[in-house]
């Protein structure tokens, strides 16, 4: 802070000590109120902590018993009056929902149904529904999250309507929920999606899908031609992860896309669903590409290439960029049984750093 020193009389017309003292008092009063708020908050948090601890313990005991129960009567007898008493406060109910969700994440099989039964029995769904109906985005998103984590399938249609919500977080939770309810069939929202799917979102969807058995993704060709670039990107990843060979032609078309990230992913996907002419397609693409995509082509040729690709790869040893030379060397060594000799011969004739070959040889030994 700047320490001001003044003696000018004229200045007093505007700022007088009394004004500054009033402001000082105001600042000190606000400071006092903030400190008061701080300690009140800490006190409330502390009280809440102890109350929550008791409630958590009661709920833990109940969940522990529920996980081994079979019949409706057995389930009900584990819900103690004490637990019901704790759950009268909204904050405790939220904590209970969070605890049930955490439990659900860590268990599998029939026990999940008992956790969901408890959620319904304690009427916690009402709390989730209130959030879902809220106009505040983060409450709505959280409501969706809770409803799908607690497998409230009757909400499927209502949640589906939010898969193209203007708010990205509501949209994301709704899409994950639909996948959670319906697996691969839930991907139907991609048909009408007008907003972007971020990379983060795509990773979450792929993780969610990984829990379901793979199916034939018949809508993939349509998604690969979507006007929504993020849908194309996600479809490319789906084709890659689930090796959907039947979309080879559509993926090849994606190499013409102006978006570099799409072309990059298309190269990776083509490698995973490669057919006989895929290496040639990648070679033809090479000269039109930018640096990162060129590198990717060479990396993928190392996986799917053969002796036939050696002349092309040898040419790439003359690239000015060392990383391209390195990837080309790696590819040659993978594609040919006498790759080392081929590269050594090239090094003798051309100006190629020998350290590149040494590095690749080390990698192969490792």
């Amino acid at each position, binding site marked *: 802070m700047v320490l*001001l020193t003044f003696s*000018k009389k004229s200045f007093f017309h505007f700022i007088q*000590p009394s004004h500054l*003292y009033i402001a*000082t008092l105001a600042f000190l009063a606000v400071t006092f109120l903030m400190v008061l*708020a701080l300690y009140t908050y800490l006190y409330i948090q502390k009280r809440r902590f102890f109350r929550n601890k008791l409630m958590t313990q009661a709920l833990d005991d109940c969940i522990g018993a529920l996980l081994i129960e079979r019949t409706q009567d057995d389930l009900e007898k584990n819900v103690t009056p004490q637990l019901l008493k704790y759950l009268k406060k909204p904050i405790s109910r939220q904590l209970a929902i969070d605890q049930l969700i955490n439990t659900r994440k860590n268990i599998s099989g029939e026990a999940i149904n008992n956790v969901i039964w408890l959620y319904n029995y304690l009427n916690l769904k009402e709390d989730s529904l209130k959030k879902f109906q809220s106009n505040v985005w983060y409450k709505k998103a959280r409501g969706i999250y809770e409803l799908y984590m607690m497998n409230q399938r009757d909400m499927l249609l209502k949640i589906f309507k939010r898969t193209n919500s203007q708010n990205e977080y509501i949209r994301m939770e709704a899409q994950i929920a639909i996948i959670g309810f319906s697996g691969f069939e839930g991907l139907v929202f991609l048909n009408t999606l007008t907003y972007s799917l*971020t990379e983060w979102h795509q990773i979450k969807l*792929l993780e969610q899908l990984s829990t379901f058995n793979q199916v034939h993704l018949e809508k993939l060709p349509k998604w690969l031609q979507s006007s929504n670039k993020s849908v194309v990107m996600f479809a490319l990843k789906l084709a890659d992860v689930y090796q959907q060979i039947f979309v080879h032609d559509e993926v090849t078309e994606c190499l013409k896309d102006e978006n570099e990230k799409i072309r990059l992913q298309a190269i990776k996907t083509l490698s995973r669903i490669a057919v006989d002419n895929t290496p040639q397609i990648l070679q033809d693409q090479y000269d039109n590409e930018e640096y990162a995509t060129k590198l990717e082509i060479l990396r993928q040729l190392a996986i799917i290439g053969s002796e036939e690709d050696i002349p092309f790869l040898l040419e790439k040893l003359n690239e000015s960029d060392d990383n391209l030379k390195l990837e080309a060397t790696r590819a040659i060594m993978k594609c040919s049984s006498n790759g080392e000799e081929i590269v050594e011969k090239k090094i003798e004739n051309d100006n190629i*750093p020998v350290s590149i070959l040494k*590095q690749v040889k080390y990698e192969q030994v490792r």
Partner: protein
Amino acid sequence: MNFSDIVFDILTYGIFLYSVVLLLFYVFIGLYSIGETNNYLHRNIFTDYRLLAASIHIPSVSILAPAYNEGATIIENVKSLLSLYYNNLEVVIINDGSKDDSLQKLIDRYELEKVDYHVQYKIPTKEIKGIYKSKSPIYRKLVVVDKVNGGKADALNVGINVSSNDYIVCIDVDCILEQDAILKMIKPFLEETDARIIATGGVIRIANSCEIVDGRLIKVHLPGNYWARMQSLEYIRAFILGRMAWARLNGLLLISGAFGAFDKRIVIKCGGYNHNTVGEDMELVVRMRRYMEEMKLPYKVAYIPDPLCWTEAPESTKILGRQRNRWTRGTIETLKLHKIMFFNPKYRLLGMLSYPYWLFFEMLAPLIEFFGFIIFVLMTFFGIIEWSLFVSLLAFIISFGYMYSAFAALMEVTSYNMYRRKTDMAKLLLTALTEPFFFHPFGVWAAIKGYIDLIRKKKSWGEMTRTGFGTTQTKS
């Protein structure tokens, strides 16, 4: 009105206007940061990082950690980095010509062997003496680079050249990172839509007095040492209020060198870290932003309010003074290098707000304060000071400082509440009461020494002796 009256009026009203604008900025920053922090908390409250950290779909990341004479703690530091929770990770330790046994310790502990490795010098650096990898597959993530001493910026540039991934996280090797730190830092890059995320900054917290076992933070305590405790408050104010507000405006100029994530392609296009400044962390962010502005590419620099990185703060005035001296020189050098942006509408918010703010209220503030103090002494000597106004102004400014510190403490408690012992918050607030009389004047004096050193063309970082988390280490 004679000439001296005119000069006096300009000084009086000029400094008054400067102070009013500065205080208004503080109020704006404080209030504006609330929305950003709350928004972040709401967005991430039920994100399951545990599930995603193990995903094969997350992008690969290289951590770059330069080390100079870190022999005392290097093994624990590397162990801590290798245990981070992230699937596709490469840990690059750059031994910047250490004079101690850092390298030998690493070789012995992690079963390292010198490997054939071709380095393309996309950014010119000093010579690499050797690259080491572990014979054991357990440490396959680890790459150790031994190089000729060239300073932190040069070491980081070597790391950029050697790293094999698209995203780099630059850290101080002795920092303690939270287990999910990398995933949280990379998330903004994955959430980008129209604007490219070029860098993400993370909050740095003070680890002095905290319980650290095996390179992991076990329990948080408020520092026992006065200077470190004062820095805890200062860091809360700077990170939770200042940088969050600037991030919301997309006007952030500084990502701490102790912990920042970058898009490597943009870093390379900009030429990497500048080794001719001691403020290489700020300079890189400014240069990257300038590059994006000049290319007319939409971009954003993101900030994460989670306490993800814990570092040891200087506990003595000697070391603290050197640090602040260096920060001042770094700020001046950076702003001088990019003076073309000053009030230049071509650079939009960067030129019209961020740069002028840093120039007037970060770079010039200590100079103006020091000048004010000299005037005060002279006026007192000549008996021309109006004491009633002086005392009221002093009370005004000190009470404003208290209010701002109380607000920062309130934000800390209502967001992350890291200091949970009963007495911690009281201690922190009591420490704040002393700030205008000890810590702040000390900071101004250290900054003035920074100006003097800059005029003398001093380029060194200054010895940074660290106590270490239970051990002793020396860094320069």
